[in-house]
């Protein structure tokens, strides 16, 4: 990325500011952020209606790849929440499977009320939220993609990965250069050009009407239920990115990073 804008002297120190993010990127960044939060939370609401994933086109109810459910503990008679991955069950009572119902109590629910939109069980409104923000996300993703294309990692970026990884062993020492470092480029580029298209296409693959228009789309992902796994995995990828992203923003100069996504200006240390 080649930042535009003039350098300026800050507080008389040898610091330089660069105009890092154009207005369209700053706006879509925050709209995309909001969309991802709403899509993840309303998506969990939708998932709760049938909290199981199958690696096939139709559901094989006896063999979910992943299920988040509740059962009664035969010894205590108390409800237990669990996450089932293949044959293995992990007890997750009060967090997943049997958790907050969004109305002050607890109930059999895959994802808890505080993580879903709406908070209470409401598939109809969860879908409305999801599809409204899917449009917003999709439109912003196009704007974003137009800009992020320049993040395509070059050979020199790939060569610099080991050195950059080494820098990240001490995350708060990662230098603030004018342009993104190779790991940033690869991560952002992968997010915009791999994970975002994956989440959009796998979401579309779940629609019976889209299926009628394009049989190849669900087939591409192993069938409708399999596409649901990809859609879920893409959501997890967004959450993983979100955690790492916020952590790095916080560790490498919180206000400087935040400012660069609000006003566009980013303070650079030393030479670029």
């Amino acid at each position, binding site marked *: 990325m080649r930042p535009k804008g003039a350098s300026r002297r800050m507080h008389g120190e040898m610091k330089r500011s660069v105009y890092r993010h154009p207005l369209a990127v700053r706006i879509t960044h925050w709209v995309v952020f909001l969309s991802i939060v709403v899509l993840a939370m309303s998506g969990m609401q939708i998932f709760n209606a049938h909290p199981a994933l199958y690696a096939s086109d139709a559901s094989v109810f006896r063999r979910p790849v992943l299920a988040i459910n509740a059962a009664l503990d035969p010894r205590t008679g108390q409800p237990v929440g669990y996450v089932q991955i293949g044959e293995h069950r992990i007890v997750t009572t009060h967090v997943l499977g049997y958790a907050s119902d969004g109305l002050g109590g607890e109930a059999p629910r895959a994802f808890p009320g505080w993580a879903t939109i709406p908070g209470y069980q409401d598939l109809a409104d969860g879908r409305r939220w999801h599809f409204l923000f899917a449009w917003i996300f999709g439109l912003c993703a196009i704007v974003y993609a137009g800009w992020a294309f320049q993040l395509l990692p070059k050979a020199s970026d790939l060569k610099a990965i080991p050195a950059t990884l080494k820098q990240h062993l001490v995350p708060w020492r990662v230098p603030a250069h004018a342009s993104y470092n190779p790991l940033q480029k690869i991560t952002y580029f992968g997010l915009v050009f791999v994970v975002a298209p994956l989440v959009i296409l796998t979401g579309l693959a779940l629609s019976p*009407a889209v299926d009628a228009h394009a049989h190849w789309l669900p087939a591409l992902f192993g069938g409708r239920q399999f596409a649901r796994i990809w859609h879920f995995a893409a959501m997890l990828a967004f959450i993983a990115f979100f955690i790492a992203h916020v952590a790095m923003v*916080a560790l490498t100069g919180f206000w400087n990073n935040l400012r660069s996504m609000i006003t566009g200006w980013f303070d650079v240390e030393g030479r670029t």
Partner: protein
Amino acid sequence: MKSILVPRARFLMLLAAGALTGCSSIADALTDNAAFRRLLIAPERLDLAILGSGEPLAREYSESEISPDFRQNGFDPPSSPEYQTWARDDWRGYRLQIGGLVRVPRSFSLLELRSRFLSLSQITRHDCVEGWSVIGKWTGPRVADVIAACGPLPQAKYVVFHCMDVDQNGTPYYESLDIRQAAHPQALLAYGLNDRPVPVKNGAPLRLKVPTQLGYKSAKYVSRIELVASLGGKNGNGGYWEDQGYEWYAGI
């Protein structure tokens, strides 16, 4: 720099937990807001305009792909004495009524539906709004053929399917399609599932099957078809689940 990292991380974690709960609460308040609701339901029209265009066919499967059990969902089967009697008597007393904006209101027994109309079979995937899918083979006449036999009037724009099953409060199930959707070549009035009569749990004796939309459009236990000029008003939002806030266009 390092010394302030720990409180900063804790602050951010607290902020995140609070933000999530906050998001949920704000979203709940917005969901109930009348102005925001209009925005929430706005994309449905766009989706219908894009996905409802043309006449693409749902994918059809082979016999070997049929799901071992066609999962039941929705209300319990009708409990009325009339329905029970029909079920015991091989549906001999049952008649499908067709009325509303038609030249000739008519009714058909199951035998008449079998003998008077071209019977079609389709092996299609049934996608429930909850997220699961099952594959089944449905047999019966086209909705279009049955309606055509009654001479629909030009002002008829929607086809309403009235059903015999009711919720806990006694509210009956119903669904609707517009005339174009009802004319879709895969829109069937199915009396057969997997080469047998439709079982009671799956909507006996007659079920609507619309494979290009979600399962709730495929109304079970259909007893009466009514052609109307518009939805809304006494015709509700065009379906039982539509009246609970679900999309009338269930293509997604």
